[in-house]
């Protein structure tokens, strides 16, 4: 019998029927949670549809991928996004080079070494870092880089502010993964006379690698889409700049911001097209991260 609670079988001797009120409430709740899920899907579909609809045609042009916006003003169509993609990728890469080792070793500390007050303090500060508004991270690097050291607003400064936002993401995901590695494997390794650091680096980390890579990719996706710190630290430039230490460097978010609010159709098109480019980049990283997680999870 597959009789559900809301539609009891007709011939059920001895089984009293549910009161109408209870049944109505149950059905109502079922409808409500379905509606809630539908409501949650509306913005996702709507956003993807809007960005795709307004932005796709520029992406089909090969110059979009190979050119910068040099010598192109808002009223003129043409040019590409190459300079902004380069800036976004370069800043994210430098950010990852700094943030990933720091975050992975912090996670190793929390799972494999940390005890007592220091471990609790580290864990607490990672929580704070998770909640830090990105604009505050930008202000901090501004206060350090520009006001204190008197340096210019260059690509590297933007990268540094992104480090603060990437570290907590990678620490938390790595920590989760390390905790999933069964203790039996550590014991097996110790029992072979393998020292602790080799046990961690050669047994524990490889076992957790898939999950760590996923965390790094999700962290990268997060920092690539960040705009707020770049408004303070990474002014837009319309030409290609490959030097992280000198001059303004374009990024996808600042390119979108640059073209926002302008009345000219070419600028509006560029705004949507660069938003689509950013979404594609971020979603690709995101999906790739999930795929890695799917196929190399810790086998229990």
């Amino acid at each position, binding site marked *: 019998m597959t009789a559900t609670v809301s539609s009891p079988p007709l011939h059920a001797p001895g089984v009293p029927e549910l009161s109408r009120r209870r049944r109505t409430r149950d059905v109502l709740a079922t409808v409500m949670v379905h509606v809630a899920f539908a409501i949650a899907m509306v913005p996702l579909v709507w956003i993807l549809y809007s960005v795709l609809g307004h932005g796709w045609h520029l992406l089909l042009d090969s110059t979009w991928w190979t050119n910068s916006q040099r010598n192109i003003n808002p009223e003129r169509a043409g040019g590409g996004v190459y300079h902004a993609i380069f800036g976004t990728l370069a800043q994210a890469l430098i950010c990852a080079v700094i943030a990933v080792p720091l975050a992975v070793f912090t996670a190793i500390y929390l799972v494999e070494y940390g005890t007592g007050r220091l471990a609790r303090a580290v864990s607490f500060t990672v929580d704070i870092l998770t909640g*830090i508004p990105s604009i505050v991270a930008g202000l901090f690097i501004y206060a350090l880089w520009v006001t204190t050291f008197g340096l210019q607003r260059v690509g590297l400064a933007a990268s540094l502010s992104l480090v603060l936002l990437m570290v907590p993401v990678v620490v938390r995901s790595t920590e989760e993964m390390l905790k999933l590695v069964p203790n039996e494997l550590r014991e097996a390794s110790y029992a072979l006379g393998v020292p602790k650091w080799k046990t961690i680096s050669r047994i524990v980390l490889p076992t957790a690698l898939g999950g760590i890579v996923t965390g790094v990719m999700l962290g990268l996706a997060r920092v690539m889409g960040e705009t707020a710190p770049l408004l303070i630290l990474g002014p837009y430039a319309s030409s290609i700049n490959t030097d992280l230490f000198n001059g303004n460097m374009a990024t996808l978010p600042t390119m979108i911001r640059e073209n926002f609010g302008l009345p000219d159709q070419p600028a509006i098109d560029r705004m949507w097209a660069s938003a689509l480019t950013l979404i594609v980049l971020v979603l690709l990283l995101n999906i790739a991260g999930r795929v890695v997680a799917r196929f190399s999870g810790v086998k229990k």
Partner: protein
Amino acid sequence: MAILTGRPGPGTSPPPADLSSTGRFGDRVFHGLSTGSGIVVIGLVTAVGAFLLAQALPALVRNDANFLTDRVWQVDGDPLRFGIPDLLWVTVISSLVAMVIALPVAIGVALYLTEYAPPRLARPFAYLVDLLAAVPSIVYGLWGATIIITYVAPVQTFLGSVLGWIPLFSTENAITGTIFLASIVLAVMILPIITAISREVFAQTPLTHKEGALALGATRWEMIRTTVLPFGTPGTISAAMLGLGRALGETIAVSLIMGTTNGAFSWSLFSGGETFASRIANNAQEFDTPTKAGAFIAAGLVLFVLTFVVNAMARVVIERRKAFAE
């Protein structure tokens, strides 16, 4: 054998071959690197607070207005006059409204994913909700400022005509890029955060509790109301607060959506304004003197403290729940 019996007694330093064979040096390096990284993280957070405070102080000292109560923001020239009550109001009210909108939907989605969705679809569906968190906030800003603005305007008009006698819904200086619109977009942005955490705690409801309720003849909804919801309440509260913390600090979406009111303050959701974050972002290109930047850094410091308090409260609720569950 040689390793065990051939080692020198205490006081003499062991030969280097032994060191490498036992990995003592590697252990020290690895332990040092890990502990050092943890300390660097603590140092980073401390430095954020210290630097913001150090650079906000000179501007606060030169401030002729009351920082907490005066509704002015003149940071060009000397003396400075700036205060934060407007920013505080817009920041808090936009985030609170966002949370009020997002929370019921998030709880519904989390219940759907844990209790109602077909098991095979629950994971992909949860992933779709998580994708909402992957959309960059500037894209939310574009969507809010150029697309849904036209659909929200009639809603505002309607609400204003019905509830206009309440100051919060007054349409007196109504514009299109309103706090209300920003709140709706913020609600969408924090929805995946609240959903993810609620989903996790709902899923942890002990099966025995649920089966117990069902065995007593409870309907699915009664089972949820008597076991899943009470079990998940502390987790959901902290999820809501983490969402609130995220909304308080959101910058670019708010900055693109909200029109500024040029000083005309209103309690209404149907006016514009600036949050801490959006005021800093809107003026970021004009940080030319340290004192001027200091005024904005002071605003940033208040935002930092605000989000810190909200997040810390959320953590306390989670920790207490953990202690309770054990």
